[in-house]
């Protein structure tokens, strides 16, 4: 049984050199640069998507991950063959981190046929089962029992892996999440719930939405282990998440990991009030001291892993890749109208011999 750990996340960050942790020590130079490449890639991709959104090229909502990039990057970098991942609607970072291409992601946001879901899902619904990535889900906390289900399947099939179910701090107050915590602990399912606590559930601060602001403490109510860490330093994320993931794989136990992070933009781009429910100074302070892109870049330069020039070159490559993805999306076609009624039923899509009986679709 976990004992509540009251030490603040920031204090622990100062006292521990996470770069020295074995899980980070074992990284090759190229692997370290890859972490930076992924983080800066997410940043540049989303900046480009924001431009597209403001130009009216992207419809619906656009929930930007900017400021939180080190969380998905760090955790995904630890994934093994039988580890699976699922998240909510702020899903671009996780998608790119698992290796989805900027082209398929940007095209999906444009609603194009070349998108990862053929333009049927949009920004909130990216999927790549071939990369163990199960979305991209639009309803707050709705993905959390699915994450437990992925872990249940691993256990059922006797596979040594874990499932990573990401959620935001707003999702912790949904009933489905609390039900799922109980089920996961009761059944010893190897799932890690990762609360990306950016401090705001849309425009409502943590203080105004959660009676117990230490969200990880909720695990105690379900006899589940938990830990809190910072999300701006990819080394710290890796060190803490690695322990949870190892334990899940080896002991088939769930874990609640609360990662303190920050989003620079509004809840979605449509959230015009985001500088009213928090101060500009608060945002600037985080950017100045904890920006995940700057933090990893500086660390790698200080470590002598890469030079300033190399960092700039990678940055430029990612800018170019993002720009190219927008061009790709722009030039891609929409799906033909006949695609509206495909991918609804697996049995219909795969009924190559026309054996199915009855009517499946009811248009006149």
């Amino acid at each position, binding site marked *: 049984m976990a004992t509540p750990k009251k030490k603040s996340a920031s204090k622990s960050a100062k006292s521990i050199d996470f770069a020295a942790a074995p899980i980070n020590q074992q990284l090759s130079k190229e692997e370290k640069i890859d972490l930076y490449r992924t983080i800066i890639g997410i940043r540049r991709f989303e900046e480009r998507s924001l431009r597209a959104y403001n130009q009216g090229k992207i419809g619906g909502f656009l929930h930007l991950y900017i400021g939180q990039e080190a969380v998905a990057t760090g955790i995904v970098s630890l994934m093994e063959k039988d580890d699976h991942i699922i998240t909510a609607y702020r899903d671009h970072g996780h998608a790119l981190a698992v290796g989805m291409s900027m082209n398929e992601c940007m095209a999906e946001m444009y609603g194009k046929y070349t998108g990862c879901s053929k333009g049927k899902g949009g920004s909130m619904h990216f999927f790549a089962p071939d990369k163990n990535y199960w979305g991209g889900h639009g309803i707050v906390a*709705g993905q959390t029992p699915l994450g437990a289900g992925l872990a*249940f399947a691993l256990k059922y099939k006797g596979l040594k892996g874990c499932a990573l179910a990401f959620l935001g701090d707003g999702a912790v107050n949904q009933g489905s999440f609390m039900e799922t915590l109980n*089920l996961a602990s009761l059944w010893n399912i190897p799932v890690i719930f990762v609360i990306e606590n950016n401090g705001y559930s849309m425009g409502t601060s943590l203080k105004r939405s959660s009676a117990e602001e230490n969200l990880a403490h909720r695990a105690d109510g379900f006899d589940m282990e938990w830990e809190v860490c910072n999300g701006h330093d990819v080394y710290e994320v890796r060190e803490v998440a690695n322990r949870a993931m190892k334990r899940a794989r080896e002991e088939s136990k769930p874990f609640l990991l609360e990662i303190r992070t920050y989003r620079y933009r509004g809840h979605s781009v449509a959230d015009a009030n985001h500088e009213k429910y928090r101060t500009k100074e608060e945002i600037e302070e985080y950017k100045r001291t904890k920006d995940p892109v700057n933090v990893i870049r500086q660390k790698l330069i200080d470590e002598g892993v890469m030079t300033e020039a190399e960092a700039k070159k990678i940055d430029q490559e990612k800018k170019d890749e993002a720009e190219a993805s927008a061009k790709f999306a722009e030039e891609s076609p929409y799906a033909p109208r006949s695609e509206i009624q495909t991918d609804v039923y697996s049995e219909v899509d795969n009924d190559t011999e026309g054996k199915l009986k009855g009517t499946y679709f009811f248009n006149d």
Partner: protein
Amino acid sequence: MALITYREAIKQALDEEIQRDENVCIMGEEVAQYNGAYKVTEGLWAKHGDKRVIDTPISEAAFSGLAIGASALGVRPVIEMMFMSFSYVAIDQLFNNASFCRYMSGGLMNIPIVVRGPANGGTNVGATHSHTPENMVANHPGLKVVCPSNAYDAKGLMKAAIRDDDPVFVMENTLLYGEKWEVPEEEYIVELGVANVLKEGEDMTIVSHGRCAMLSLQAAKTLEEKHGISVEVVDLRSIRPLDEETILNSVKKTGRVLLVEENKPYCGVDAQISHIIQLKAFDYLDGPIHRVSSIDAPQIYAKPLEDWQIPNEERIIEGALKTMA
């Protein structure tokens, strides 16, 4: 042929499918150690153990969502709703995730789950435990729904549902659990999307599903004996997919139609059936299409009133006579 109950038929289907495919498991409230709230799963836990027959806490949203996630990786869970009414607390899981994940992933994700449990009124338990949500399920492309009216169909449809690669709801009926029908000893499947003509007739067609199909069959016999009206009874069995052809062939033969279901009338299944008939067999109709549905109010508790609220033989006969007028 063995004479077995509807309950036993479902149990046999579950038992056989659990044995056939190691990925099939059943989970729900009281399904294992308690042997099922309605004893549908009686003996399965003792026979197949903890891995395959799983008791859940009272958390419909969590175990529905868990089943969906597990199915993505190849497990084929059958989840029991003690009452289909309880699926309402899992609506986001069932009506957003189970129904739409395949679509929103551009066909990359499959959800081979079965959601089963009783969906009926007439049991004197009030409005919260008496829902018949087959119309609601059918309104969600991506979901399938069947309503077996007898033991033979219950077993055959359940097996088809479990082997189906899409999410299928199987709407059972507590009032049928103890009723007996003849069921073959050898294995069989009842395909989704195939209606059953329960009785042939010449003067009018009754289209129905679930327990109402059995009531309609009874009423048809009375109509024939007492009123000299020859009634054809079509049991839909499957709501989505729907066997339009069998409905339309019958309507074209008789020219008169009565639709009978336990749903409330507004946007019930029969509203759609009625539309299809007028669109595709308009010229064959000799009069307006009539309906007998549950009386349009929340389910009443008082037994004699509830027995009148849901379709019964008397109301079906009344409806049939109107249809013939």
